[in-house]
């Protein structure tokens, strides 16, 4: 066990595990978001539950935070290590001949997502912490929908969000199926997994983007 977390394969598996966790989180997130399109009340209820349930707040949220931070830190650490392993750069390198743009640029799509996340945190999470703990306001279980709509009134925010989702899609297109490979799953189901992950990588960010655009143009 001791060797597990110091080796390259261990790091790879850790990346994969945190990735799968985050991928799963996206599904929940998008599900809640989609509620806002169909039913304001339902959205508020779900958001309120997420925002106040102690299990979510004090167990899931820290794990999620840790997952996000771990995934980013590890990603950047690996990138630095990999750059060092590479040494002198090629004068001419035709990467497109043998791999996808997404797979070669995970660190850039990741960095773009990080930038987006910072903004996203500012919009929702910082606001949330402020309302809850720093300058507490009386609890209003129906405030979520309005807050959401408010954020998406700015066209700049919406553009940044959509770009963020595009990078998320690019990141997922390689990352999701890659996580299976890292976990050692490469067998007769691989083709199906590839198809599923590809669909997932496009549909989920598209839904996120749809929600943002929907609220921008609908109000």
């Amino acid at each position, binding site marked *: 066990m001791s060797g597990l977390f110091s080796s*390259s394969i261990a790091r790879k598996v850790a990346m994969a595990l945190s990735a799968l966790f985050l991928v799963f989180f996206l599904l929940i997130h998008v599900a809640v978001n989609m509620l806002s399109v169909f039913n304001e009340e339902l959205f508020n209820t779900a958001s309120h539950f997420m925002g106040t349930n102690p299990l979510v707040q004090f167990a899931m949220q820290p794990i999620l935070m840790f997952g996000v931070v771990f995934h980013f830190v590890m990603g950047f650490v690996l990138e630095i290590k*990999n750059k060092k392993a590479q040494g002198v750069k090629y*004068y*001419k390198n035709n990467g497109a001949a043998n*791999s996808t743009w997404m*797979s070669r640029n995970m660190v850039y799509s990741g960095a773009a997502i990080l930038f987006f996340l910072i903004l996203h945190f500012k919009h929702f999470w910082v606001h949330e912490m402020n309302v809850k703990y720093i300058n507490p306001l009386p609890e209003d279980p129906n405030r979520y929908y309005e807050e959401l709509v408010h954020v998406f009134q700015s066209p700049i925010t919406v553009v940044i969000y959509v770009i963020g989702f595009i990078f998320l899609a690019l990141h997922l297109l390689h990352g999701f199926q*890659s996580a299976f490979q*890292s976990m050692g799953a*490469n067998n007769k189901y691989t083709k199906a997994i590839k198809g599923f992950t590809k669909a997932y990588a496009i549909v989920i960010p598209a839904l996120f983007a749809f929600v943002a655009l929907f609220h921008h143009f609908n109000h």
Partner: protein
Amino acid sequence: MNLTLKIWRQKSKDTKGKMVDYKVTDISEHMSFLEMMDVLNEQLVAKDEEPVAFDHDCREGICGMCSMYINGEAHGPDRGITTCQLHMRMFNDGDTITIEPFRASAFPVIKDLVVDRMPFERIQQAGGFISVNTSGNTQDANAIPISKHAADEAMDAATCIGCGACVATCKNSSAMLFVAAKVSQYALLPQGQVEATDRVLNMVKQMDQEGFGNCTNTGACEIECPKGISLENIARMNREYLKASL
């Protein structure tokens, strides 16, 4: 055809290198890439210049010695071949071709296009074997039937020629495909089971110590591998490693 070659020239391990332009003329499309390099070197020798050093030996794609990075790809633009099997019909008259050594911190340049691949040796020494004496006093070869499927898969993994194209191609200079091929070969055969745990742990440890990068599953290695060693082998090694660690 007439070509311009941009070739990495580096006198020795510790000197700085640079790209140098050369012209070659009257190259036949039936020549192999290395025969074109022979023509260039004959030219250079005639002019009392130092010929370009490059590794090569069998010139039939099996020894794994040749190792150039041609136009941005290991073993050049064709698939399923080594540089010695690359033919000039893949290029056009007037082309400029860049020729560089395989790059990786773990593969320092010895001279020009020749690199040092000793890390591969040390990885193999760390566990790329079955500890059986060569006395011949083993059981009969047919004593353990092995399913044709497993034998074929083991064979596919075993065809690795140790050229290092996987490392050269990988943007992270990862040696996972090379190591995985050997681990897989033994993992698929009953003979390899006895030492499976130690083998995968030791080989991966040595691989990490040699300074190869981490695999990010770009799949470039599989595409550029002259022997088409499959990414499945890496997945298998990951499994073997997890099994051995837990």
